[in-house]
């Protein structure tokens, strides 16, 4: 597995370099897990306090968290549940540590402690989560230029539309996540 994520081309600060290194180490495992982690990390990154940089604490790196991914959708429902649970548990650990540093608990920890039942007949936070889309085929946009993309990358499954965009994809974002 090539360590493609080591330092992106536009690593502006030491913080980012540090972060991508961590990811590349974690990704030195099996490829299916890799892809999932990349999707999850990307979704988690969309949740970070981009608003202004939240970078003066130890928690800036605690970005691996519970989100469903592309890949999970292709698996059976049961497996889905188990996987999600495993994901949650992994992320909780990271989150909990971040919380200790901050002096308050992260939402994922509070949620865990609340011990909610996703199948409860009384509505709660988990039951309110919207389910998957009904209309089967997801739309496919080129990850580089945004237009309709007929092809997908063999390594990471992200979409691309032309050879030109594929080259950019390989250079800048294949198995990488950044915001």
């Amino acid at each position, binding site marked *: 597995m090539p360590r493609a994520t080591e330092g992106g081309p*536009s690593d502006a600060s030491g913080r980012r370099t540090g972060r991508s290194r961590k990811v590349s180490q974690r990704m030195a495992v099996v490829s299916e897990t890799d892809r999932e982690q990349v999707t999850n990390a990307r979704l988690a990154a*969309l949740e970070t306090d981009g*608003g202004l940089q939240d970078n003066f604490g130890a928690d800036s790196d605690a970005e691996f968290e519970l989100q469903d*991914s592309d890949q999970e959708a292709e698996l059976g429902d049961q497996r889905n549940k188990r996987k999600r649970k495993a994901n949650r548990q992994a992320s909780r650990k990271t989150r909990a540590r971040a919380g200790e540093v901050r002096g308050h*608990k992260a939402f994922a920890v509070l949620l865990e402690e609340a011990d909610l039942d996703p199948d409860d007949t009384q509505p709660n936070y988990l039951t309110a989560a919207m389910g998957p889309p009904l209309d089967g085929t997801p739309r496919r*946009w080129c990850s580089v230029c*945004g237009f309709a993309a007929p092809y997908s990358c063999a390594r990471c499954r992200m979409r691309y539309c032309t050879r030109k965009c594929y080259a950019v994809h390989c250079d800048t974002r294949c198995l990488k996540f*950044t915001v």
Partner: protein
Amino acid sequence: MAPSASGQVVVLDDGGSTIKVGLAGQSDPARILPNATGKVKGGPQLLIGDDIDAQADISSLSIRRPIEKGYVVNWKAQAQIIDRACRGVLPHSTKGCSMLLTEPLFTLPAIQEARCQAVFETLGCQALLTLPAPLLALTQHCAEVPNLPASRAHCGVVVDAGFSFTHVVPIFDGKVMKSAVRRIDLGGKALTNYLTELVSYRSMDMREEAYLMEHIKNAISFVSTDLKADLVKAKTSSKLKVEYVLPDGLSLARGFVREPVPLAKGETRTEQVLVLNNERFLVPELIFSPSDIGLQQAGLPQMVADSVMATHPDLWPLLFSNVVVCGGLATCPDFQERLLKDLRPLVPDHIKVDVWKPKDPIAAAWQGGSRVGASAQFAHLAMTKADYEEDGIR
């Protein structure tokens, strides 16, 4: 138990991005401040709320938000921000005042406990009423359009598309039908980060300027009402292309949007320009189709249909006739139109569908809160400090 007449009711809409504050009975919030604390790199001073707006050099600023995933996880910081927000609105401090505070649906008991402690003990309020923002937004909408049958029944579906998440909340007779509420974990924050990601790969690395990106997103985004046509337009013409001239911190303090300015031969640009094309509509598109980025949750139109159809069929006509959009994303051009267009085919033909937007979709929840805070309802519903000391949270 009625709070004593001496206490003024202060109304706070505690949002993930900003906190809106003012006295009950007013038509608009008196102040809107960042709901965050911050520090300048290397500086010892803690910045609270509006201090952040006053910072000239955004690039050296780090901030923390008390709200994570839409819920207040840090009540210590939140109390400090509320205390700051109330200054200049209340004559003295929050001590002895009554408070109406928005709180998201399904707030965890541990968070509610911390909230009561902060409000009654740290801030010294003497009465507190918490209500979900969507309910207050509907109150405001019903007051703006009072003759609607659904308004008279205080009934409707609120689409609250805020900073942290997007909720669809059906309400009947002024009560939230909790079992039919739907949430997707996508809001304005994720959209800004997504736009940042797109432009950072396509044109310029903006990852260190997320605050500016928030502004750019608001300035350039629109919701497509015909995605295929807009994609073709973006690919084959420059009709949708705009330029955002970036502030340089010297001669240009604020950025702005302009029509593309072509360069003459041999000419070079002196200003830094971000060219935006299909990003303008593909970013808000995420709310309509979260699976585009791998989030396995249905988009907004299906959420609304799913939510209403989880209620009793007798209510469907009333609910679908009064779909109300609010929150920051509701201000994005054509948001309302697109929702209607995509929702219509998901609803049985004989049922009328109408999508409404309050006059001020961002302030609507505060405005509704202002109405409730000024009414007799407040004293009837509020928990007093004595109640809290006797029974804890209810």
